[in-house]
Structure formats: structure tokens, C-alpha cells
């Protein structure tokens, strides 16, 4: 039998669910304890923010909200590994990655609170907005990577997509073009096992989502998405590879969506409680905390202090959000075109007049 090509997909994990190293060697980043503590703090903050956002929605103060519960390691790794000049093309729940890059929690709330200004956020001005049409962000990242390549910039574009999103044509289109054009791109598949009510097993017959990259000749890697060290290590590797002209990667981070899909969803309809309970045993925060505690850089006092600090900062952000007045009616028109066409100006005037009349 003649073999035309062969492939292997590596699975990477450094910490077991109890925070113990699974092997003898750890990557350098695991020993950068300052950085790891930063990552842990970000993860903790995000979780506090998340539960507050859900509470706001439940009390009618926020629209539909997509929780990031359980994804904190994956998202923090993505954010912390990237450089400011890199471009992030998020889906809609990668808050930890965005917070690291400078997006304010109040901006996240503003967006889910029904106000476009949430997308005019304080993160890098070149980062993409939240992207609701599933997986389309993958091609925007690829296009950004193409721009970097044409201009000779040493920047990398990163797109984050879900297990469900990895079925969508755009994901495949992105990996196909990234391979063909050798783009500085990282496609991160955050596989949280569910796409609303559809389980991972229903999305594809492939054993791993990482192997989809083989279709485009990309570098492929699967990691434990609840292991912040493995996630970060994979990101470091994929980013360096891309930055140094080594091409694009698909990194699959295997984690679990611990909350409903969004606040508009009720996951009890379609998934067993047992599965969720079991998944809680692999969740990322406790694992990293155990690791840091064992190394002596974390303890209960620090934890208590961190929790109150997070609560306070979240409260401040929520206040700022709640204090933000809605945009006036003309905001519908003002950013439609750089140069407003006459007929839009006329409709704008009418809409404004209607508001005035209404008093």
C-alpha cells in the first residue's frame, strides 16, 4: 500500500483536574508565576462578572446574555498570549480574552444591553466586534492576516469559534484559504460540547475538531481547554509559528459550557444534570488555583481579597452601565455611511422631528 500522506493530532494537557502536573515537564509559561497569577485573577474576575451579568438579565436590566462560565481558561489564554497589535476576531462570549486586551466590562454590558456603543470598545481599535453570524469572524481574521502579509507586518490574526461554528462553511473557508495563502492566522475552536442544544457528536463524524485543519494543510493541536497552562502553551506556539511565517493553525480547546447557551435558553430541556455535574469537576478555576496554591503563590487570604476586589470592580462597571443613557434616535442613521446620502438625511430629520413631537 502506497501512502500519500499521514497525520497525527497531538493532545496536550499539563494539569489534571486537581491541578497536579500530568507529566514531568511543564512549559516555561507555567513557571512564569506572575503571569499565571494574572491569568488566574482574570479568570476569577470574569466569573464574577458573568454571574452579575446573568443576574442583571434576570431582573430585566440587560437583554439576552451569553455566559462564559467554564470557558475562562481558554479565553484567558487567548487574550494573554496575544500582542496588542495582533487582531482578535471573537465570537460573542470570549470576555476574558477581551478584558485582557482592554475592553471594559461596561462595554460588554452595553452591547448586550441593546446599544451599539458597546462595540466601540476600549480594546485595540483594530479588534473586531462581537460576531453573531456564526463563524463568519474566521474569514475576517483570515482577511486581516492577509492584510498583514501583504503589508509585511509581523502581526497575527486570531479567530475564536465554537464546536458548532466549526461546522459552518466559513470556518472551512478560512482554513482553506489560510493554508493556500500561508496566512498568519490562528483558528481557535473552543469546543464546549454544545451548540445550543446540539451536542458535539452531532456536528461531525471527525474524532477531533483539531483535525479539520488537515483539510487545509494547517498545523493542528488539541488541548485540554480547562487547563490554562495547556491553552496558553498552545496559543504561544501557534502565535509564534504564525508570526514567524510558519503559517496557520487550528487549536481545539476541549472544555464545557457550564451555563445555558444564553439567558434565553434553558439547557435542562436537552442535557442531563449529571453531565453538567461531572463537568464541574473539570472546571478551570479550581484547577489553576490548586496549582498556584501548591506552588505557594496563592492562598485563602489572597482568594478572599481577590473575590471582594472583583465584586467591587464589577459593581462599579454595572453602575457605569446602568448610568449610560440611550442613544438618541438619530444614532440609527449617523454611522450608516461616512458621507450621509440625501435620502438618509431626510429620513433622519423625519425621525428626529417625530421624537420632538412626541415630547
Amino acid at each position, binding site marked *: 500500500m502506497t501512502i500519500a500522506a499521514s497525520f497525527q493530532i497531538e493532545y496536550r494537557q499539563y494539569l489534571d483536574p486537581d491541578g497536579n502536573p500530568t507529566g514531568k515537564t511543564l512549559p516555561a509559561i507555567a513557571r512564569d508565576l506572575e503571569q499565571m497569577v494574572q491569568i488566574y485573577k482574570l479568570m476569577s474576575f470574569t466569573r464574577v462578572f458573568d454571574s452579575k451579568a446573568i443576574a442583571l438579565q434576570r431582573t430585566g436590566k440587560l*437583554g*439576552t446574555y451569553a455566559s462564559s462560565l467554564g470557558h475562562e481558561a481558554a479565553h484567558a489564554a487567548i487574550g494573554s498570549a496575544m500582542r496588542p497589535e495582533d487582531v482578535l476576531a471573537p465570537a460573542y462570549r470570549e470576555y476574558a480574552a477581551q478584558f485582557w486586551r482592554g475592553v471594559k466590562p461596561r462595554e460588554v454590558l452595553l*452591547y*448586550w*444591553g*441593546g*446599544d*451599539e456603543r458597546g462595540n466601540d470598545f476600549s480594546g485595540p481599535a483594530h479588534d473586531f466586534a*462581537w460576531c*453573531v*453570524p*456564526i*463563524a463568519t469572524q474566521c474569514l475576517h481574521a483570515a482577511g486581516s492576516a492577509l492584510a498583514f502579509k501583504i503589508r509585511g507586518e509581523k502581526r497575527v490574526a486570531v479567530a475564536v469559534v465554537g464546536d*458548532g*461554528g466549526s*461546522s*459552518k*462553511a466559513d470556518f472551512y473557508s478560512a482554513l482553506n484559504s489560510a493554508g493556500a495563502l500561508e496566512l498568519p492566522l490562528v483558528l481557535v475552536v473552543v469546543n464546549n460540547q454544545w*451548540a*445550543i*442544544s*446540539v451536542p458535539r457528536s*452531532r*456536528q*461531525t463524524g471527525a474524532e477531533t475538531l483539531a483535525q479539520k485543519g488537515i483539510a487545509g494543510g494547517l498545523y493542528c493541536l488539541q488541548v485540554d481547554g480547562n487547563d490554562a497552562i495547556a491553552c496558553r502553551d498552545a496559543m504561544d506556539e501557534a502565535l509564534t509559528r504564525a508570526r514567524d511565517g510558519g503559517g496557520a493553525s487550528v487549536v481545539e480547546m476541549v472544555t464545557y459550557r457550564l451555563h445555558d447557551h444564553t439567558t*434565553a*435558553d434553558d439547557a435542562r*430541556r*436537552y442535557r442531563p444534570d449529571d453531565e453538567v455535574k461531572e463537568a464541574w469537576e473539570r472546571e478551570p478555576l479550581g484547577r489553576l488555583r490548586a496549582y498556584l496554591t501548591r506552588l505557594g503563590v496563592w492562598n485563602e487570604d489572597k482568594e478572599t481579597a481577590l473575590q471582594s476586589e472583583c465584586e467591587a470592580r464589577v459593581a462599579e462597571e454595572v453602575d457605569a452601565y446602568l448610568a449610560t443613557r*440611550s*442613544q438618541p*434616535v438619530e*444614532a*440609527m*442613521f449617523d454611522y*450608516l455611511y461616512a458621507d450621509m446620502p440625501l*435620502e*438618509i438625511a431626510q*429620513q433622519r430629520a423625519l*425621525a428626529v422631528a*417625530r*421624537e420632538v413631537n412626541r415630547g
Partner: protein
Amino acid sequence: MAEISLIEGITQALAYEMRKDQSVVVLGEDIGVNGGVFRATVGLQQEFGPWRVLDTPLCETTIAGLTVGMAAQGMKPIAEAQFEGFIYPMLEHLICHAARMRHRTRGRLSSPLVVRAPWGGGIRAPEHHSEANEALFANVPGLRIVMPSSPARAYGLLLAAIRDPDPVIYFEPKRIYRQYKEEVPDDGEALPLDVCFVLRDGTDVTLVSWGATVKETLEAADALEAEGISAEVIDLATIRPLDFDTIHESVTRTGRCVIVQEAPKNVGVGAEIAARLAEQALYDLVAPVERVTGYDTHMPLFRLEMKYMPSVERIVEAAKRTLAVS
């Protein structure tokens, strides 16, 4: 007989036809165990099993292409686009194949399929969940486009859509999914796919609408009546082919026409109605035609969405403008 809402009318029609016709299958995202994000397919998978109520991978191109393929091989697939804002990846298959299959093969193959899509704004949903994009399909030959505005019409028009041997895009005005309930006998009676419905007779002005704004249009007619103005209200229901005769006949009597459309104005479906009036009813028109529509900008995120849409007030004003002329 229990009273049901518009969305229950949809579920009832799906179940009725699936019981009657083995070739009817439903496919889409989250329509199985979950019963659809709006609950339109609730209970169907339990009754008909996972292969007739099929959760697909998350890809609208896939859903559309599979649907065209199944339909060509003698099934009657009903695909769900989870929201109208996610229908775009379906367009190549719907326009190049569904709409052309019969024409292309001189009838050898055909596309007896339905695409259902929750449609329109007003439920405080996130971005891309509130579009009114029916005009996208309206210039495409070979399609039928339908939008109900009551539980009974939801039931009867969906049955007709499923039974029709050609592709039908069936938009569901999600804002009025649960607006009110009415008795809808589960008798399998379809409604015609080529007529408008006159919901209210009137003599002074003709109001035409479709989908969720039929609600505001009827309310406007009430408000006008309170001021002694008699408005006829027509629900377009089938957008393509357009039953212009019913509208024309009404305008012959009223001499005035206000078209109410949630979608942006420019080259919307309302433009076609106004255009036909300009072509065929010029001498019947006593006053300029009025279009009360969404603005030619994007449906804003939800804080401003109600300011985007045609309001009762705007409809009443427009109707009065037509009456200020004599």
C-alpha cells in the same frame, strides 16, 4: 377546541402534515430535542423520531443544500432558518437551485420544499435577530413567499406551503408569535397561496400590510374609525405571487392607499404595490400613495428598535394625509 397562538398554529400544521405524509421531514438547528428556539417544533421529534425531525450541523449552506437534494428525490423537506438574519448562506441554493430546478429540467426534477424563518423585530433580541428581509427573495422567479399574521392563517398557509409542489419561503412574524390566541380547527384545510385577505372593510382609505405590522395597521384602522374615517385593511399574506387585484379593487373604491411595511423602504415589497398602482390605478388614485416603513438603515440594537418600526401613529398620520387631499 382549544385556542392557539400563531406559533402553535405552525406546530399544529407541521404535525398534521407529518402525520398525513411520510415524505414530510423537518430539519434545522435545535429543532429536535429542544423543539426549536421558539418552540415551533416542540414535541415533533418525540412523535416522528430523529430522522424526520433532524438536527443538522450548524451550517445554513448545508441545511439549504440538503433540503434541495432531498426535495429533488421526492421528499418534502421543511427547513428552519433559526432567524431570518441567518438565511443568507441559504441563498445560493434557494436562488440557483430551488427556484430553478423545475425550469431547468423541464419538470423532470423539482423542489417541493419550504424554508421557515422567524422574521422581524420587536422582541428585544440581539443583533441579526430582528431583520425584515423578505424583499431579498421578492425579485426571484420560481419562489413563493408567504407571511401569515394570525394563528388561523399561520396554520392554513403553512399547510398550503408544504403541499405546494414548488419552493416556498415562509416567514414567521416572531413579534406576534404569541400576540393572541384563536380557535383553529385541526382539520387540514389549507388556505390559498395566491390571495390577499381583507381583514376589515372600509370606504375611505385602503391600508395594506403583511406580517407583524398587520397588528399596528388594524389598530390604526380602529383609531381612524374613532375619528370617523373608514379604513379597509388588507393582509398581503402571500408576497409572491402578489394578488394585486384585491388591492386594486379596494383602491378603486377608496382612491387612497397606505402601505405599511416593517422592512426598509427602498426597493421593498411595498414599492411593487405602489408601482402597480402607478401603472394600473393612476386614475383611481385621489391622493398620492403613502408608504409607512422601517427606515433605510439597519434595525438598531433593541434599545431603539421600537423607534425604527412603523407605529400606529405614523400609519394614522399617513392615512390622514391621503384624506387631506380631495
